């Protein structure tokens, strides 16, 4: 560490809350009508973060493999829900959720485990102080890609039904008939992380790096961590997106090489 970590007091938080009041007053003054939503959102921020603060404090203190695993499972399950919550068209029978969750699990969990065991190597390797924030970052970004990829694929397949069936009718397999669309939607799902890597350091200082710098870590050290995170995110997103789009395409077709749009709502 090269700098000094400056802890915030509750009084400091009260000072910044006046800015929240300012936002509310602007809403009232300009008749934006969002003052209520602002208030509720601010309240949620406080409650959710304070709660997770305590939960993490307990988890970190225990360093229990079981409780770390339970926390990870809950995080993955919630991320799966988040990835499918805003999809306009979904697969019937909970398949959207199942596909999103399993893709996230494979992408984010696998990459997190590799990072812990092979790169960061905390003692023990599952130390929740490393494992949980890392998993959270992986999930947050991967779910973005998975959501975009699935959404794009489902809407494209719906739109291109006649073209896909034209290929099936010529004796093409379902994989051949949908390959271009799976590719295109996977690309769309990866765009976010590519943009983030391109913009890193020029347009935005990534949140984690900023956090480390504020916590007193030397910028050059923080940068190393951030580069690692970016690469991990790229890997996790790629695995998650590819799995999600491939599984979605499979679910929207069957072993008789048919398009099964009846499997979505």
């Amino acid at each position, binding site marked *: 560490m090269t700098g000094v970590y400056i802890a915030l007091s509750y009084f400091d938080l009260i000072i910044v809350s006046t800015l929240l009041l300012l936002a509310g007053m602007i809403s009232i003054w300009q008749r934006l009508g969002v003052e209520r939503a602002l208030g509720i959102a601010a309240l949620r921020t406080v409650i959710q973060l304070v709660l997770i603060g305590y939960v993490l404090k307990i988890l970190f203190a225990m360093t229990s493999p079981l409780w770390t695993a339970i926390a990870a499972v809950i995080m993955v399950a919630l991320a799966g829900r988040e990835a499918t919550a805003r999809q306009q068209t979904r697969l019937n029978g909970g398949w959207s959720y199942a596909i999103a969750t399993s893709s996230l699990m494979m992408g984010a969990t696998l990459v997190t485990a590799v990072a812990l065991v092979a790169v960061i190597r905390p003692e023990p390797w599952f130390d929740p102080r490393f494992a949980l924030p890392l998993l959270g970052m992986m999930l947050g970004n991967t779910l973005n890609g998975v959501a975009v990829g699935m959404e794009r694929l489902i809407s494209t397949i719906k739109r291109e039904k*006649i073209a896909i069936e034209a290929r099936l009718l010529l004796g093409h397999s379902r994989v051949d008939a949908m390959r271009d669309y799976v590719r295109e939607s996977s690309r769309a799902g990866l765009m976010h992380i590519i943009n983030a890597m391109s913009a890193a350091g020029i347009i935005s200082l990534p949140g984690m790096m900023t956090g480390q710098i504020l916590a007193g870590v030397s910028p050059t050290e923080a940068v190393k961590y951030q580069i690692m995170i970016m690469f991990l995110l790229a890997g996790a997103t790629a695995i998650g997106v590819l799995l999600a789009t491939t599984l979605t395409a499979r679910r929207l077709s069957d072993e008789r090489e048919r398009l099964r749009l009846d499997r979505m709502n």
Partner: protein
Amino acid sequence: MTNQTTQSGLRLKGITRLGLGPIDLNLASGQITALMGPSGAGKTMLLRAIADLDPAQGNAFINGQDRNEIAPTRWRKRVVYVPAITGWWDEKIRPHFVGADKNTTKQILHALGLESTALDWDVAHISTGEKQRLGLARALVNAMIDATAPEVLLLDEPTSGLDEQNRDMAEKLILKQAQNGATILMVTHDRAQAVRMGAKILNINSGKISTSEVAP
């Protein structure tokens, strides 16, 4: 119909889906059958079920061979379904004819009044009638990649968007396929066309085949 005639051609046994069927049919090889009936009667649904595009109960046999024993990709090359609205997955026509024999393609295009240069057209810039003719040509040429001729043709209003001259050419090409031994099941709203082509007429209503008649 005796067992012998069912061996060659297309046989449907209890094809059922949603409001359609159960439908049992024996269509002999070389025979042209016109499927007629009001909109929503189940004509397209039946063709889709035969092509195995939608899950349906019942079974289909080609020359006595069970559909379930044939890979779907193979089935659709032998039982060629040309829908009323043709689908295109590339901006150009040519990629849709990949793998096809050049001479065969040329011949079929000619038979439909098209030049080989049609392959250079943009899908976005061609008329409904042109799409319809190219769709038929594509299906026929594709079926001939690893066979001499298609065994079954399922045609959904194959000439609905064509002018008289092009319609006549398309009919002639379809007749030729029948002469070469193809079983042809064709949806049409034009009784005169069925008569012209010497087709057996099947009337379908509310998903059931109501009457069958031989055109005079």
